[in-house]
């Protein structure tokens, strides 16, 4: 199996800079997720890897071979589009075998490979149907089978689950992960959904405005976000952020008081911001600052509290069976161990 490497890849669309020098190494057999908001350059990176767009600067390598100027057909990659890009007038079998037939693989061999690929993803029962007779999930499988059938060096998946309803998306996500574990292959998976990124990726690359923000294991991304953007982007609801102030040996941030204050030396003499994830906001009746419950969002077993304390709003996640009511006054606090520190001006994470 071959890896995929972006080396200083820049991509401009006219005056718009979609990628500003991306360096990224996707290991052989790795499932790498590129995640970021729209306009972050994640899809551009994928299209550049496929060869659908030309790089403005830098190079792309597959299995050690420089493919920067190689046309898409000769890169031995396959792609799954968000819209699936199935041919509406062809049967499922013809869709899956399209690339093989286009490359003049004999009929019999094509048929055998199509059947095996269809079986792998579980769409073997409707080979003779046409795309419009299939459900969203089934179309998704056909698109996957078509990507598998040629045994490419790299699979490129562009938001393949975005068109599915929530339940099916979760199901297909698990199935995709299982598929990757079973058949292997180097996969680059683009999504804007951070949950999808963390659950699916062997490693996750977070992009923003065409720049790589952080590359790491899903755990690392969640536990040690490199900067304020990653911290806010990953985790739902987003992390609460407050300006931090050192006063009389304690650190105050919004409604939270950290005592004793973390070593000022470690954080330096700069403006800092303190982040606390909703799940780390401790809500009690007795300890901490007073906070007013404005809105409750009960999502089954857990409840999100929209609170206002000291004129600042924050969100806390509590178990539904221990939730206060709207209008209640509660007290909130947080542990230093669960606090994140960022440089207020650059957004850089501070230890």
């Amino acid at each position, binding site marked *: 199996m071959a890896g995929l490497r972006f080396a200083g890849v820049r991509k401009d669309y006219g005056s718009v800079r979609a990628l500003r020098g991306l360096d990224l190494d996707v290991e052989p057999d790795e499932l790498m997720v590129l995640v970021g908001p729209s306009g972050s350059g994640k899809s551009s990176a994928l299209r550049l890897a*496929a*060869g*659908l767009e030309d790089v403005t600067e830098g190079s792309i390598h597959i299995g050690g071979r420089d493919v920067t100027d190689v*046309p*898409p*057909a*000769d*890169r031995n*990659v*396959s*792609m799954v*589009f968000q*819209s699936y*890009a199935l*041919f*509406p*007038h062809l049967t499922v079998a013809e869709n899956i075998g*399209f*690339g093989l037939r*286009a*490359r003049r693989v004999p009929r019999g061999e094509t048929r055998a490979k199509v059947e095996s690929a269809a079986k792998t993803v579980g769409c073997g029962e409707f080979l003779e149907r046409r795309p*419009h007779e299939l459900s969203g999930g089934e179309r998704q499988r056909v698109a996957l089978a078509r990507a598998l059938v*040629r045994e490419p060096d790299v699979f490129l998946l562009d938001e393949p689950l975005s068109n599915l309803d929530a339940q099916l998306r979760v199901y297909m996500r698990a199935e995709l992960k299982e598929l990757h574990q079973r058949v292997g292959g180097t996969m680059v998976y683009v999504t804007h959904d951070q949950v999808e990124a963390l659950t699916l990726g062997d490693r996750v690359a977070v992009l923003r405005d065409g720049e790589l923000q952080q590359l790491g294991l899903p755990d690392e991304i969640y536990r040690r976000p490199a900067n304020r953007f990653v911290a806010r982007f990953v985790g739902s609801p987003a992390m609460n952020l407050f300006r931090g102030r050192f006063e009389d040996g304690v650190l105050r941030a919004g409604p939270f008081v950290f005592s004793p204050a973390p070593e000022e030396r470690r954080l330096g003499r700069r403006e800092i911001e303190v982040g606390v994830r909703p799940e780390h906001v401790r809500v009690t009746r007795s300890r901490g600052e007073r906070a007013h419950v404005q809105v409750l969002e009960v999502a089954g077993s857990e409840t999100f509290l929209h609170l206002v304390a000291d004129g600042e709003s924050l969100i806390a996640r509590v178990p539904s069976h221990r939730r206060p009511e709207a209008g209640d006054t509660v007290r909130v606090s947080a542990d230093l161990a669960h606090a994140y520190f960022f440089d207020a001006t650059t957004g850089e994470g501070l230890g």
Partner: protein
Amino acid sequence: MLRRTERREYAVMLAPYVLGLAALIAFPAVITFGLALTEYDLIRSPEFIGLDNFRELWEDEIFWTAMRNSLMFILFAVPLRLLGALILSLLLWKRFRGVAAYRTSGYLPTVVPDVAYALLWLWIFNPLYGPLNLALEAIGGPTPSWLTDPRAAQWAVIIMSLFTIGEGFIVAMATRQGVPGELYELGDIEGARPTYMFWRLTLPLMAPTLLLLMFRDTIFSFQANFVPALIVTEGGPAPYATTYLPLFIYRNGFEYLRYGYAAAATLTMFLITAVIIYVQYLIVKRWRRAFVV
């Protein structure tokens, strides 16, 4: 169920169209059907003669010549017009610098009034000073006497029809623009060559529209050669090389004042059109499954 006021509103809104349809299409059609069974010269009152007009048509050599001319015209003009519209649409569906000017020139001949268009071609086809033969002469090609040689005159009428394909061009172009670009990107990745993509993807996906255009163009082409035949070739060269059914009907009705006979020919032409469309439909139906999206 519509409320009564709603129904009245719809009726009022439909009225202009329904009245126009009745007065200009349905009523004349019924009259034509009736006239076909009479002898009528505009002076004496119509005289019922049963199917005599049709019997006469059957034995009228000029009618059969006109019928053959019309069918041959359709046989060549319709496929060539479709091909022209398809080629134009494939060349001009994308946006590029100056595309609007090309699209406009593709469409423009279609909006030129028929008579002006015919007079223009009369000049183009002139064997002595017409630009077409001057150009052919310059490249050493043949310089047919377009309007005096029967075969050449028939081709002249077909050639004239090949430039009024604006509507087919626009419809085909919109269809091509509707095919998702991702299908072609996928083709690029999968290693499909442009010709393969054309035959395997573009043409099948455009086929339903092209077939619809073919039906429409068949009906249209049956009637469309009237003005060129009347003005450019005058039904000739002698005796009847470019006398098509519409001209045949016109001559009988308005020149020989045989309205009943002309009506019978009109009805026959209508039936032939219907038969051709039905045969086309049957052929298409057999292939339909491949085109249904």
